């Protein structure tokens, strides 16, 4: 089995390249490659088609500009069509050796893919998954139909689905606020808290409730929003929501504590 790390390029929302983000003393790229090296025969790095930089591991360049994450997998199968490829995004900083080993142990070569179900919304997670050689042909025809969505591609494959132990395992880093969430989780661990969450207007309609009491392991409002967004399928983006704690406006990076009353509010429309 070979591994391919998706570095994702420069993140506009994060404001910098995610692979070189340093958390707890080392870069995300160094952390994920250190986890993978003992588990697979070789670790490769997915890079843009015109990337000439030097990397501490063998790069695999995309075959075309801006192909999305599936372009990385396509290039990996072009490199070695007979290999089983473990595709891992660089921005999953909560992944642990046990998670990666569990996926490898449960991999079934007769299936196209082995993947985690995202514990927050029960969808198969395409960017930390093992793809068998049988997935290569299906990927070609998927891309030939001009489809680019990795989640949708994984949904078309016959696959083995595995569960993660910790609901925060697949926490994804897209915004600076999520970095604060991650650092808080690293410092204090995933402690269970009970909070009451109120939803207003469109959010209460989508959640089909105005108020609920939740057990959460999230550390800040950002982590809690991510949980409830996936749970209820909220359509509004984080940037449009205003949060409150105990009836006062709050920052997304505010820490969560048991017993708090949280409110998530869509854009105001009075007058």
């Amino acid at each position, binding site marked *: 089995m070979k591994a391919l790390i998706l570095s994702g390029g420069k993140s506009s929302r994060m404001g910098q390249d995610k692979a070189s983000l340093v958390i707890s003393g080392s870069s995300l790229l160094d952390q994920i490659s250190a986890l993978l090296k003992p588990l697979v025969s070789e670790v490769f790095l997915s890079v843009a088609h015109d990337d000439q930089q030097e990397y501490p591991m063998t790069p695999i360049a995309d075959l075309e500009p801006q192909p999305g994450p599936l372009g990385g997998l396509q290039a990996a199968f072009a490199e070695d069509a007979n290999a089983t490829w473990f595709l891992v995004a660089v921005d999953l900083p909560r992944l642990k050796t046990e998670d990666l080993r569990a996926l490898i142990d449960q991999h079934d070569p007769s299936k196209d893919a082995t993947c985690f179900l995202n514990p927050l919304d029960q969808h198969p997670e395409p960017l930390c998954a093992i793809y068998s050689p049988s997935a290569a042909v299906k990927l070609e025809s998927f891309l030939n139909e001009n489809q680019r969505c990795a989640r949708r591609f994984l949904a078309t494959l016959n696959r083995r689905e595995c569960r993660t132990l910790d609901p925060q395992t697949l926490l994804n880093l897209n915004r600076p606020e999520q970095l604060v969430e991650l650092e808080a989780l690293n410092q204090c661990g995933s402690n269970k808290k009970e909070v009451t969450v*109120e939803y*207003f*207007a*469109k959010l209460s*309609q989508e959640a089909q409730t105005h108020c609920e009491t939740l057990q959460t392991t999230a550390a800040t409002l950002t982590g809690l929003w991510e949980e409830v967004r996936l749970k209820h399928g909220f359509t509004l983006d984080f940037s449009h929501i*205003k949060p*409150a704690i105990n*009836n*006062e*406006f709050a920052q997304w990076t505010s820490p969560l504590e048991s017993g708090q009353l949280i*409110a998530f*509010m*869509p*854009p*105001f*429309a*009075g*007058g």
Partner: protein
Amino acid sequence: MFVIQEKEIDLSSLRCEMLDPCCGALVVFEGLVRNHHEGRSVSELHYAHHPVLAQREGQRIIDELMNQYPITKAIAVHRVGTLKIGECAVVTLTVAPHRQAAFEANRFLIDSIKARVPIWKKETYCSGEVEWTSPCPNCGPLGHSHQSCS
């Protein structure tokens, strides 16, 4: 003073409260329920609010207003619940010795209420559809001209 209420707004008694012998200017803005939104016919509106935060934030706006403008008094009343076309949903009154401050403070007051107070509007259309409306994305605290989104 900032008030959120379900009952109809009694504008004449609010006006009486504002009158002050040293003031030469009273500006009143009334926000009315309109029968159309983005090209669709509206039959009624429902306003919801965050009961604690809406009151708190509204009062904060009034306090800021009194510190920032040379005015004597300001009142804003916002209705919640179900309103019919033509009814008054919000009213802002500012009174000052001179008209410029009364006008400017009133504009700040209504724009700030729309931008900062957690109140939401659910529109019932003549087609029977019901939708929580999004605010016009161009409506910042400074306001803008509404040629395109009427």
